[in-house]
Protein backbone atom coordinates (compact mmCIF):
# COMPACT_ATOMS: atom_id res chain seq x y z
CA UNK A 1 0.00 0.00 0.00
CA UNK A 2 2.82 2.36 0.88
CA UNK A 3 3.96 2.33 -2.77
CA UNK A 4 0.87 4.32 -3.74
CA UNK A 5 0.41 8.04 -3.10
CA UNK A 6 -1.09 8.89 0.31
CA UNK A 7 -1.42 5.24 1.26
CA UNK A 8 1.48 4.78 3.63
CA UNK A 9 -0.14 3.49 6.80
CA UNK A 10 3.00 1.82 8.13
CA UNK A 11 3.15 4.11 11.16
CA UNK A 12 -0.47 3.63 12.14
CA UNK A 13 -1.22 1.79 15.39
CA UNK A 14 -1.11 -1.96 14.86
CA UNK A 15 -4.45 -2.86 16.46
CA UNK A 16 -6.20 -0.15 14.42
CA UNK A 17 -4.65 -1.30 11.14
CA UNK A 18 -5.54 -4.91 11.84
CA UNK A 19 -9.22 -4.30 12.52
CA UNK A 20 -9.64 -1.56 9.92
CA UNK A 21 -8.14 -3.60 7.09
CA UNK A 22 -10.19 -6.56 8.17
CA UNK A 23 -13.35 -4.39 8.07
CA UNK A 24 -12.36 -2.99 4.66
CA UNK A 25 -11.80 -6.45 3.19
CA UNK A 26 -15.17 -7.56 4.47
CA UNK A 27 -16.94 -4.49 3.13
CA UNK A 28 -15.24 -4.64 -0.29
CA UNK A 29 -15.67 -8.43 -0.50
CA UNK A 30 -11.94 -9.15 -0.57
CA UNK A 31 -11.16 -12.69 0.51
CA UNK A 32 -7.48 -13.08 -0.27
CA UNK A 33 -4.42 -10.90 0.23
CA UNK A 34 -3.47 -11.42 -3.43
CA UNK A 35 -6.85 -10.07 -4.53
CA UNK A 36 -6.34 -6.96 -2.41
CA UNK A 37 -2.88 -6.38 -3.88
CA UNK A 38 -4.19 -6.83 -7.43
CA UNK A 39 -7.05 -4.37 -6.91
CA UNK A 40 -4.67 -1.75 -5.55
CA UNK A 41 -3.66 -0.98 -9.14
CA UNK A 42 -7.14 0.49 -9.72
CA UNK A 43 -7.49 4.09 -8.58
CA UNK A 44 -11.20 3.71 -7.72
CA UNK A 45 -10.36 0.81 -5.40
CA UNK A 46 -7.56 2.80 -3.79
CA UNK A 47 -9.95 5.66 -3.16
CA UNK A 48 -12.43 3.25 -1.58
CA UNK A 49 -9.68 1.99 0.74
CA UNK A 50 -8.62 5.54 1.63
CA UNK A 51 -12.24 6.47 2.30
CA UNK A 52 -12.76 3.51 4.60
CA UNK A 53 -9.45 4.05 6.39
CA UNK A 54 -10.82 7.41 7.51
CA UNK A 55 -12.68 7.19 10.77
CA UNK A 56 -15.72 9.43 10.62
CA UNK A 57 -16.09 12.00 13.34
CA UNK A 58 -18.72 10.42 15.55
CA UNK A 59 -21.01 13.42 15.54
CA UNK A 60 -21.15 17.19 15.16
CA UNK A 61 -20.22 19.27 18.23
CA UNK A 62 -18.68 16.21 19.89
CA UNK A 63 -17.77 17.31 23.43
CA UNK A 64 -19.99 20.42 23.64
CA UNK A 65 -17.82 21.83 26.46
CA UNK A 66 -14.90 21.91 24.05
CA UNK A 67 -16.87 23.89 21.47
CA UNK A 68 -18.14 26.28 24.15
CA UNK A 69 -14.58 26.92 25.29
CA UNK A 70 -13.41 27.35 21.71
CA UNK A 71 -16.20 29.84 20.98
CA UNK A 72 -15.91 31.85 24.19
CA UNK A 73 -12.23 31.71 25.08
CA UNK A 74 -10.28 30.99 21.90
CA UNK A 75 -12.06 32.66 18.97
CA UNK A 76 -11.83 36.15 20.53
CA UNK A 77 -8.09 35.66 21.03
CA UNK A 78 -7.07 34.41 17.59
CA UNK A 79 -3.99 36.26 16.29
CA UNK A 80 -4.78 39.57 14.61
CA UNK A 81 -3.56 38.50 11.16
CA UNK A 82 -5.00 34.97 11.29
CA UNK A 83 -6.70 34.03 8.02
CA UNK A 84 -7.17 30.29 8.17
CA UNK A 85 -8.66 27.76 10.56
CA UNK A 86 -7.30 24.39 9.57
CA UNK A 87 -8.50 20.81 10.00
CA UNK A 88 -5.58 18.82 8.59
CA UNK A 89 -7.43 15.51 8.46
CA UNK A 90 -11.17 15.88 8.18
CA UNK A 91 -12.95 12.63 7.40
CA UNK A 92 -16.63 13.49 7.42
CA UNK A 93 -16.92 17.28 7.51
CA UNK A 94 -18.63 17.16 10.90
CA UNK A 95 -15.86 19.00 12.74
CA UNK A 96 -15.48 21.55 9.93
CA UNK A 97 -19.21 22.25 9.72
CA UNK A 98 -19.45 22.51 13.51
CA UNK A 99 -16.73 25.14 13.35
CA UNK A 100 -18.48 26.88 10.44
CA UNK A 101 -21.70 27.16 12.45
CA UNK A 102 -19.77 28.59 15.41
CA UNK A 103 -18.15 31.16 13.10
CA UNK A 104 -21.45 32.00 11.47
CA UNK A 105 -23.18 32.55 14.80
CA UNK A 106 -20.30 34.68 16.06
CA UNK A 107 -20.53 36.86 12.94
CA UNK A 108 -16.99 35.88 11.97
CA UNK A 109 -17.67 33.98 8.78
CA UNK A 110 -16.23 36.73 6.58
CA UNK A 111 -13.08 37.00 8.62
CA UNK A 112 -11.68 33.47 8.43
CA UNK A 113 -11.45 30.64 5.93
CA UNK A 114 -12.00 27.07 7.13
CA UNK A 115 -9.66 24.73 5.30
CA UNK A 116 -9.61 20.97 5.61
CA UNK A 117 -7.69 18.15 3.97
CA UNK A 118 -8.53 14.61 3.05
CA UNK A 119 -6.76 12.08 0.84
CA UNK A 120 -10.01 10.44 -0.25
CA UNK A 121 -11.71 12.02 -3.26
CA UNK A 122 -15.05 10.60 -2.14
CA UNK A 123 -14.77 12.22 1.26
CA UNK A 124 -13.80 15.56 -0.26
CA UNK A 125 -16.80 15.39 -2.60
CA UNK A 126 -19.10 14.62 0.35
CA UNK A 127 -17.72 17.55 2.30
CA UNK A 128 -18.08 19.89 -0.69
CA UNK A 129 -21.68 18.76 -1.09
CA UNK A 130 -22.31 19.12 2.67
CA UNK A 131 -23.41 15.51 3.04
CA UNK A 132 -23.52 14.39 6.68
CA UNK A 133 -24.31 10.95 8.09
CA UNK A 134 -28.09 11.14 8.68
CA UNK A 135 -27.74 8.59 11.46
CA UNK A 136 -25.96 11.26 13.50
CA UNK A 137 -28.79 13.80 13.28
CA UNK A 138 -30.26 13.19 16.73
CA UNK A 139 -26.95 13.28 18.56
CA UNK A 140 -25.85 16.33 16.52
CA UNK A 141 -28.98 18.13 17.57
CA UNK A 142 -28.58 17.13 21.23
CA UNK A 143 -24.97 18.33 21.24
CA UNK A 144 -25.93 21.62 19.60
CA UNK A 145 -28.64 22.16 22.19
CA UNK A 146 -26.18 21.44 25.00
CA UNK A 147 -23.75 23.91 23.46
CA UNK A 148 -26.00 26.74 22.42
CA UNK A 149 -29.29 26.24 24.21
CA UNK A 150 -30.87 27.58 21.01
CA UNK A 151 -33.33 26.15 18.53
CA UNK A 152 -31.36 27.09 15.39
CA UNK A 153 -30.02 23.63 14.57
CA UNK A 154 -32.59 22.72 11.94
CA UNK A 155 -32.00 25.96 10.04
CA UNK A 156 -28.52 24.72 9.08
CA UNK A 157 -29.67 21.50 7.40
CA UNK A 158 -31.79 20.16 4.62
CA UNK A 159 -33.28 16.83 5.67
CA UNK A 160 -34.22 14.40 2.88
CA UNK A 161 -35.14 10.77 2.65
CA UNK A 162 -32.22 9.13 4.40
CA UNK A 163 -30.01 12.18 3.79
CA UNK A 164 -28.80 15.14 5.76
CA UNK A 165 -27.19 18.05 3.94
CA UNK A 166 -25.58 21.13 5.43
CA UNK A 167 -27.06 24.36 4.09
CA UNK A 168 -25.26 26.17 1.28
CA UNK A 169 -24.56 29.11 3.56
CA UNK A 170 -22.58 26.93 6.00
CA UNK A 171 -20.86 24.66 3.51
CA UNK A 172 -19.61 27.67 1.55
CA UNK A 173 -17.45 28.47 4.57
CA UNK A 174 -15.53 25.20 4.26
CA UNK A 175 -12.94 24.38 1.62
CA UNK A 176 -11.69 20.79 1.33
CA UNK A 177 -8.38 19.99 -0.33
CA UNK A 178 -7.87 16.57 -1.81
CA UNK A 179 -4.31 16.07 -0.58
CA UNK A 180 -2.45 14.84 2.47
CA UNK A 181 -1.77 17.52 5.01
CA UNK A 182 1.88 16.44 5.25
CA UNK A 183 2.52 17.57 1.71
CA UNK A 184 0.52 20.76 1.83
CA UNK A 185 2.42 24.00 1.40
CA UNK A 186 0.49 26.49 3.48
CA UNK A 187 3.09 28.62 5.12
CA UNK A 188 1.42 31.76 3.75
CA UNK A 189 -2.07 30.92 4.96
CA UNK A 190 -1.59 32.40 8.44
CA UNK A 191 -3.08 29.46 10.28
CA UNK A 192 -4.36 30.66 13.64
CA UNK A 193 -6.24 27.55 14.72
CA UNK A 194 -5.69 23.85 14.09
CA UNK A 195 -8.29 21.24 15.07
CA UNK A 196 -6.70 17.80 15.16
CA UNK A 197 -9.02 15.97 17.50
CA UNK A 198 -9.01 12.18 17.77
CA UNK A 199 -6.75 11.69 14.77
CA UNK A 200 -3.43 10.77 16.37
CA UNK A 201 -5.14 7.98 18.35
CA UNK A 202 -4.75 5.91 15.18
CA UNK A 203 -1.04 6.63 14.89
CA UNK A 204 1.94 5.02 16.56
CA UNK A 205 4.16 7.12 18.79
CA UNK A 206 6.64 7.98 16.02
CA UNK A 207 4.01 9.27 13.62
CA UNK A 208 2.26 11.12 16.44
CA UNK A 209 5.46 12.94 17.38
CA UNK A 210 6.34 13.81 13.78
CA UNK A 211 2.84 14.98 12.98
CA UNK A 212 2.51 17.27 15.98
CA UNK A 213 5.93 18.75 15.26
CA UNK A 214 4.82 19.52 11.70
CA UNK A 215 1.47 20.99 12.76
CA UNK A 216 2.98 23.26 15.37
CA UNK A 217 5.51 24.49 12.80
CA UNK A 218 2.64 25.41 10.47
CA UNK A 219 0.74 27.22 13.23
CA UNK A 220 1.38 30.95 13.41
CA UNK A 221 2.79 32.41 16.66
CA UNK A 222 -0.07 33.06 19.06
CA UNK A 223 -2.21 30.46 17.28
CA UNK A 224 -4.09 27.61 18.93
CA UNK A 225 -4.16 23.85 18.48
CA UNK A 226 -6.82 21.51 19.89
CA UNK A 227 -6.53 17.74 20.23
CA UNK A 228 -8.94 15.07 21.46
CA UNK A 229 -9.85 15.15 25.14
CA UNK A 230 -8.16 11.76 25.63
CA UNK A 231 -5.06 12.52 23.57
CA UNK A 232 -1.75 13.81 24.86
CA UNK A 233 0.76 16.12 23.28
CA UNK A 234 4.24 14.63 22.86
CA UNK A 235 6.39 15.54 25.86
CA UNK A 236 8.68 17.80 23.81
CA UNK A 237 5.70 20.02 22.98
CA UNK A 238 4.23 20.11 26.45
CA UNK A 239 6.90 22.60 27.47
CA UNK A 240 6.85 24.49 24.21
CA UNK A 241 3.12 25.23 24.11
CA UNK A 242 0.95 27.07 26.61
CA UNK A 243 -1.91 25.04 28.06
CA UNK A 244 -5.12 27.01 27.63
CA UNK A 245 -7.49 24.30 28.88
CA UNK A 246 -6.18 21.01 30.19
CA UNK A 247 -9.58 19.27 30.14
CA UNK A 248 -10.54 20.29 26.62
CA UNK A 249 -6.91 19.93 25.44
CA UNK A 250 -6.47 23.36 23.89
CA UNK A 251 -2.94 24.73 23.58
CA UNK A 252 -1.39 27.93 22.29
CA UNK A 253 1.85 28.52 20.47
CA UNK A 254 3.64 31.36 22.24
CA UNK A 255 3.77 34.67 20.38
CA UNK A 256 7.49 34.69 20.88
CA UNK A 257 9.71 31.61 20.96
CA UNK A 258 10.39 30.52 24.52
CA UNK A 259 13.97 29.72 25.30
CA UNK A 260 13.92 26.91 27.82
CA UNK A 261 17.68 26.58 27.92
CA UNK A 262 17.96 30.06 29.31
CA UNK A 263 16.59 30.31 32.83
Amino acid sequence: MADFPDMDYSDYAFAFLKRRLSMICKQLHIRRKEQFIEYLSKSAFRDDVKTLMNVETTEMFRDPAFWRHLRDQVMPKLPEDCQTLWLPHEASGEEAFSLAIILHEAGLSDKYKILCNNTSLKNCENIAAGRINPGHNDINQTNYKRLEDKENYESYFEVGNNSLTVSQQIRNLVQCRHEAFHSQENSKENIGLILFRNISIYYNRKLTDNTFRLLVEKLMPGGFIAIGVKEELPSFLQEELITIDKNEKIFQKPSRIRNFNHV
Partner: protein
Amino acid sequence: MYNQDQTYKVIVMGGSAGSFSVVSHILAGINPEFKIPIVLCLHRLKHVRSGLVEGLSLKSVIPVVEPNDKAKLRPNTVYLAPSNYHLFLELDGSIALSTEESFNHSRPSIDYTLSSAAYAFRDRVLGILLTGANKDGARGIKEIADNKGFTIVQDPKSCDIDTMPRSALQLFQPDLVLDPQQILEFLNALPQ
Protein backbone atom coordinates in the same frame (compact mmCIF):
# COMPACT_ATOMS: atom_id res chain seq x y z
CA MET B 1 -8.50 -24.46 33.10
CA TYR B 2 -7.19 -22.48 36.03
CA ASN B 3 -3.55 -22.90 36.74
CA GLN B 4 -2.81 -21.59 40.21
CA ASP B 5 0.78 -20.79 39.24
CA GLN B 6 -0.30 -18.67 36.32
CA THR B 7 0.27 -14.96 36.72
CA TYR B 8 -1.96 -12.80 34.59
CA LYS B 9 -0.75 -9.68 32.83
CA VAL B 10 -4.15 -8.05 32.79
CA ILE B 11 -7.71 -8.53 34.00
CA VAL B 12 -10.43 -7.23 31.68
CA MET B 13 -13.90 -6.79 33.06
CA GLY B 14 -17.06 -5.79 31.18
CA GLY B 15 -20.62 -5.01 32.13
CA SER B 16 -23.40 -2.58 31.44
CA ALA B 17 -24.19 0.51 33.48
CA GLY B 18 -26.09 -1.69 35.93
CA SER B 19 -22.88 -3.47 36.90
CA PHE B 20 -21.67 -0.36 38.73
CA SER B 21 -22.62 -1.78 42.14
CA VAL B 22 -20.90 -5.11 41.40
CA VAL B 23 -17.72 -3.41 40.22
CA SER B 24 -17.85 -1.08 43.18
CA HIS B 25 -18.19 -4.05 45.56
CA ILE B 26 -15.18 -5.76 43.97
CA LEU B 27 -12.99 -2.67 44.02
CA ALA B 28 -13.91 -1.92 47.63
CA GLY B 29 -12.93 -5.39 48.81
CA ILE B 30 -9.92 -6.11 46.66
CA ASN B 31 -6.49 -6.42 48.22
CA PRO B 32 -5.06 -2.86 48.26
CA GLU B 33 -1.75 -4.35 47.09
CA PHE B 34 -3.40 -6.07 44.10
CA LYS B 35 -0.82 -5.74 41.35
CA ILE B 36 -2.42 -6.96 38.13
CA PRO B 37 -3.81 -4.04 36.08
CA ILE B 38 -7.60 -4.15 35.73
CA VAL B 39 -9.23 -2.78 32.58
CA LEU B 40 -12.91 -1.96 32.96
CA CYS B 41 -15.26 -1.51 30.05
CA LEU B 42 -18.70 -0.45 31.24
CA HIS B 43 -21.53 0.79 29.08
CA ARG B 44 -22.12 4.43 29.88
CA LEU B 45 -23.79 7.55 28.56
CA LYS B 46 -21.87 8.92 25.58
CA HIS B 47 -22.28 12.58 26.40
CA VAL B 48 -21.45 12.38 30.12
CA ARG B 49 -17.70 12.51 30.43
CA SER B 50 -17.31 12.68 34.18
CA GLY B 51 -18.85 11.04 37.23
CA LEU B 52 -18.22 7.35 36.73
CA VAL B 53 -14.54 7.32 37.57
CA GLU B 54 -15.24 9.57 40.55
CA GLY B 55 -18.08 7.27 41.68
CA LEU B 56 -15.91 4.15 41.47
CA SER B 57 -13.03 5.91 43.20
CA LEU B 58 -15.19 6.65 46.24
CA LYS B 59 -15.06 3.03 47.38
CA SER B 60 -12.13 1.58 45.46
CA VAL B 61 -9.01 0.79 47.47
CA ILE B 62 -6.83 1.01 44.36
CA PRO B 63 -6.59 4.01 41.98
CA VAL B 64 -9.19 4.22 39.19
CA VAL B 65 -8.26 6.30 36.15
CA GLU B 66 -9.67 7.09 32.72
CA PRO B 67 -6.60 6.62 30.56
CA ASN B 68 -5.41 8.80 27.73
CA ASP B 69 -4.62 7.17 24.42
CA LYS B 70 -1.25 5.31 24.37
CA ALA B 71 -1.10 5.05 28.20
CA LYS B 72 0.90 2.03 29.39
CA LEU B 73 -0.74 -0.43 31.76
CA ARG B 74 0.74 -0.17 35.23
CA PRO B 75 0.34 -2.40 38.29
CA ASN B 76 -2.18 -1.65 41.04
CA THR B 77 -4.36 0.50 38.77
CA VAL B 78 -7.87 0.24 37.37
CA TYR B 79 -8.38 1.65 33.85
CA LEU B 80 -11.92 2.67 32.97
CA ALA B 81 -12.83 3.01 29.27
CA PRO B 82 -13.69 6.72 28.70
CA SER B 83 -17.16 7.66 27.50
CA ASN B 84 -17.65 7.77 23.73
CA TYR B 85 -14.34 5.96 23.02
CA HIS B 86 -13.64 2.31 22.35
CA LEU B 87 -10.71 0.96 24.36
CA PHE B 88 -8.31 -1.55 22.80
CA LEU B 89 -5.20 -3.17 24.23
CA GLU B 90 -2.08 -3.20 22.08
CA LEU B 91 0.60 -5.88 21.90
CA ASP B 92 3.05 -3.68 23.81
CA GLY B 93 0.69 -3.40 26.77
CA SER B 94 -0.52 0.09 25.94
CA ILE B 95 -4.05 1.37 25.57
CA ALA B 96 -5.39 2.50 22.20
CA LEU B 97 -8.58 4.54 22.17
CA SER B 98 -10.82 4.86 19.15
CA THR B 99 -13.83 6.80 17.94
CA GLU B 100 -14.74 4.18 15.36
CA GLU B 101 -18.36 3.24 14.77
CA SER B 102 -20.44 2.00 17.71
CA PHE B 103 -20.52 -1.77 18.03
CA ASN B 104 -23.54 -3.56 19.51
CA HIS B 105 -24.95 -0.02 19.87
CA SER B 106 -22.11 0.70 22.27
CA ARG B 107 -19.05 2.92 22.41
CA PRO B 108 -17.15 1.72 24.37
CA SER B 109 -17.89 -1.79 23.20
CA ILE B 110 -17.07 -4.60 25.64
CA ASP B 111 -16.56 -7.04 22.77
CA TYR B 112 -13.85 -4.80 21.31
CA THR B 113 -11.96 -4.46 24.61
CA LEU B 114 -12.12 -8.16 25.44
CA SER B 115 -11.21 -9.31 21.92
CA SER B 116 -8.19 -7.01 21.78
CA ALA B 117 -7.04 -8.31 25.17
CA ALA B 118 -7.43 -11.89 23.93
CA TYR B 119 -5.27 -11.13 20.89
CA ALA B 120 -2.62 -9.13 22.73
CA PHE B 121 -2.24 -11.26 25.88
CA ARG B 122 -3.46 -14.74 24.88
CA ASP B 123 -3.30 -17.08 27.93
CA ARG B 124 -2.12 -14.25 30.19
CA VAL B 125 -5.49 -12.52 30.33
CA LEU B 126 -8.32 -13.08 32.78
CA GLY B 127 -11.71 -11.99 31.43
CA ILE B 128 -14.77 -11.33 33.57
CA LEU B 129 -18.25 -10.60 32.20
CA LEU B 130 -20.75 -9.08 34.60
CA THR B 131 -24.43 -8.22 34.62
CA GLY B 132 -25.77 -6.43 31.55
CA ALA B 133 -28.73 -5.70 29.36
CA ASN B 134 -27.44 -6.63 25.90
CA LYS B 135 -25.20 -9.23 24.31
CA ASP B 136 -22.12 -6.99 23.98
CA GLY B 137 -19.19 -8.79 25.61
CA ALA B 138 -20.34 -12.33 24.92
CA ARG B 139 -18.22 -12.80 21.82
CA GLY B 140 -15.26 -11.01 23.36
CA ILE B 141 -15.09 -13.23 26.40
CA LYS B 142 -15.44 -16.29 24.19
CA GLU B 143 -12.41 -15.04 22.24
CA ILE B 144 -10.46 -14.91 25.49
CA ALA B 145 -11.41 -18.54 26.12
CA ASP B 146 -10.54 -19.46 22.51
CA ASN B 147 -7.07 -17.95 23.07
CA LYS B 148 -6.62 -19.97 26.26
CA GLY B 149 -7.19 -17.09 28.64
CA PHE B 150 -9.17 -17.65 31.82
CA THR B 151 -12.85 -16.66 31.86
CA ILE B 152 -15.40 -15.92 34.55
CA VAL B 153 -19.03 -15.06 33.88
CA GLN B 154 -21.23 -13.63 36.60
CA ASP B 155 -23.84 -16.14 37.72
CA PRO B 156 -27.08 -15.03 36.01
CA LYS B 157 -28.95 -15.80 39.23
CA SER B 158 -27.00 -12.99 40.92
CA CYS B 159 -27.66 -10.46 38.12
CA ASP B 160 -30.23 -7.66 38.04
CA ILE B 161 -30.36 -8.06 34.26
CA ASP B 162 -28.84 -11.27 32.96
CA THR B 163 -28.91 -10.82 29.16
CA MET B 164 -25.15 -10.31 28.91
CA PRO B 165 -24.00 -13.33 30.96
CA ARG B 166 -26.69 -15.54 29.45
CA SER B 167 -25.57 -14.56 25.93
CA ALA B 168 -22.05 -15.60 26.85
CA LEU B 169 -23.19 -18.88 28.38
CA GLN B 170 -25.06 -19.68 25.17
CA LEU B 171 -21.81 -19.29 23.21
CA PHE B 172 -19.35 -21.24 25.36
CA GLN B 173 -18.65 -22.73 28.77
CA PRO B 174 -16.49 -20.35 30.85
CA ASP B 175 -13.99 -21.62 33.39
CA LEU B 176 -16.13 -20.33 36.25
CA VAL B 177 -19.61 -18.96 36.86
CA LEU B 178 -19.52 -16.97 40.10
CA ASP B 179 -21.51 -14.43 42.07
CA PRO B 180 -19.89 -11.04 42.87
CA GLN B 181 -18.57 -12.07 46.29
CA GLN B 182 -17.01 -15.22 44.81
CA ILE B 183 -15.41 -13.16 42.03
CA LEU B 184 -13.89 -10.91 44.67
CA GLU B 185 -12.56 -13.86 46.67
CA PHE B 186 -11.16 -15.44 43.51
CA LEU B 187 -9.29 -12.25 42.60
CA ASN B 188 -7.86 -11.84 46.09
CA ALA B 189 -6.53 -15.40 45.95
CA LEU B 190 -4.64 -14.84 42.68
CA PRO B 191 -0.83 -15.01 42.77
CA GLN B 192 0.58 -11.52 42.26
